[in-house]
């Protein structure tokens, strides 16, 4: 068959596929594209036409600090989540299916519990007079309470806990798809367990790490409740600042500009990841 003939067969399929997609496209257009455009427009028209909102945000040390905090917290949370989630996911991938499904149930169950309740529970555990500090002081391990709350430590602990399922689930999928024979083959060829992990397991699980990592990072960027309750005022993240601008100061132009900057930076990071890992891997295709 000629190249033209192949295209001739392929072309009619595209409109047909698009036709089926139309309801979905309308939905996305109405509920995602239009609001984002409205946001963009407001950021350059409120209170007056021009770029003054962006100038105010980018030219001010306080806002710069909040932007920096936001990305710092998201990066730290993502890295710690990967480190904690990997062994759990590996265990889930290799253990008997019946036991694994019970553990899955427990992990999913935590996601169904109210976020505020879980965050308050962490406050009770982490504060100076909390369970952890009391136990450590009672055991004579420390004499001064550890500063576990109202700082980056508190935010990281609370957010990693909330993000874990989003990392574990894609990772288990990827790890299960890896043929265990490859690891056995590596051992037979004389690779140490560490070398087998580094050269076989880790590279093969990268798509799962990338997919989960991206999800955790992007969700962390917009996080609100946990940083507000477990962080200090110097850990303020962008979402909290935007909420203040919109809800209490009624400065919608500035809030919209901040939200739009966050959106653009997030999209840029996503595009970068697509280039680095490839589109299939970035969205979790193994």
């Amino acid at each position: 068959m000629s190249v033209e003939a192949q295209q001739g067969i392929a072309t009619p399929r595209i409109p047909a596929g698009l036709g089926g997609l139309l309801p979905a496209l309308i939905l996305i257009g109405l509920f995602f594209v239009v609001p984002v455009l409205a946001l963009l427009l407001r950021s350059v028209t409120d209170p007056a036409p021009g770029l003054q909102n962006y100038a105010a945000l980018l030219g001010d040390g306080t806002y710069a600090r909040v932007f920096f905090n936001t990305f710092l917290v998201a990066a730290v949370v993502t890295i710690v989540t990967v480190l904690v989630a990997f062994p759990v996911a590996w265990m889930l991938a290799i253990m008997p299916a019946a036991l694994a499904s019970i553990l899955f149930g427990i992990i999913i169950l935590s996601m169904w519990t109210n976020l505020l309740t879980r965050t308050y529970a962490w406050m009770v555990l982490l504060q100076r007079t909390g369970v952890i500090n009391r136990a450590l002081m009672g055991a004579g391990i420390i004499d001064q309470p550890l500063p576990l709350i109202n700082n980056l430590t508190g935010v990281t602990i609370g957010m990693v806990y909330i993000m874990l399922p989003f990392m574990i689930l894609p990772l288990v999928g990827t790890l299960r798809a890896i043929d265990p024979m490859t690891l056995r083959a590596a051992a037979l060829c004389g690779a140490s367990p560490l070398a087998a992990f580094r050269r076989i397991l880790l590279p093969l699980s990268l798509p799962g790490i990338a997919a989960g990592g991206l999800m955790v990072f992007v969700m962390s960027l917009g996080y609100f409740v946990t940083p507000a309750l477990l962080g200090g005022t110097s850990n303020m993240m962008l979402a909290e600042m935007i909420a203040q601008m919109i809800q209490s100061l009624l400065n919608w132009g500035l809030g919209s500009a901040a939200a739009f900057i966050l959106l653009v930076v997030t999209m840029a990071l996503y595009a970068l990841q697509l280039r680095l890992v490839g589109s299939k891997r970035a969205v979790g295709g193994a």
Partner: protein
Amino acid sequence: MKLIFAGILAGLMATTAAKADEMVFTSWGGTTQEAQTKSWAEPFSASSGIKVLQDGPTDYGKLKAMVDAKNVTWDVVDVEMDFAIKAAKDGLLEPIDFAAVPKADLDPRFSNENAVGSFYYSFALAWNKGAVSGEPAGWADMFDTKKFPGKRTFYKWSAPGVIEIALLADGVPADKLYPLDLDRAFKKLDTIKSDIVWWGGGAESQQLIASGEAAFGQLWNGRVFALEKDGADVGVSWNQNLTAADVLVVPKGAKNRDAAMKFLAAATSPTGQAKFAEASGYAPINTKAKAEMPADVVKGLPDAHVDGQINLDMNYWAEHRDEIAKRWYAWQAK
């Protein structure tokens, strides 16, 4: 453009629109709104036949979105007084119809053309008796980390209160507080910054003091009242207690304006105010309410501590809200 954006927002929120013999009351949720429902809404519905739907929490962004989109689903909203003054200037509020709402007995400090008082409260100094040795006597002691070591808790958001406390502690006389000397206030706050734990909401402030996580702090008197009711071992100093108020407003273009005005009359009546004060520990804004309240409740109100009481200047705050907020959050983030 504005309309499209606001329209989308308001469209998404238009879930509680009320019918003809109904109206929507919006407040901050929690024990405060429960008390408002019991003391105001239920008796009002029983006598007028107008059903009062509850919504919340109060959200100034939503209120503005509704008014901008001309699709107002809230009829009466409980807001902070400095916000009400600013919102009236921005044209977001209906004037109060004082033909329907009797004005004579309302405390003039907490009512104006576009708002009637909801309740008033004081910031008082409260402490956990187990965590503090001795008795802090006033705001200056909150800045004395040698005499009173430990964490101290203050209200997190930019609002009337903390700036004034810092200035009073630094020796500014009460009648010279305004205009606020922000440089001086932040310099004073810098001296204890690492010892401050912020509270963002009333429940958090109670939790911090009850657990001893913060040894002492600046609390709403209603929260001290709740702590005492729960049997927590707390002390309180009313010295230089600072009054502020919540007010009730009707958003511009509210669909049930007449019902809203009738509701305001009931909420600000001596009986409505007395019942609410009894349930919440906050003070009535109707001067005749005290006559209807048990003596032991009256004793615990800010009204019983007018000696040395300071009224936070809501007009000053309404005027300078944005510029103070900008400096406040910049200082906090440092």
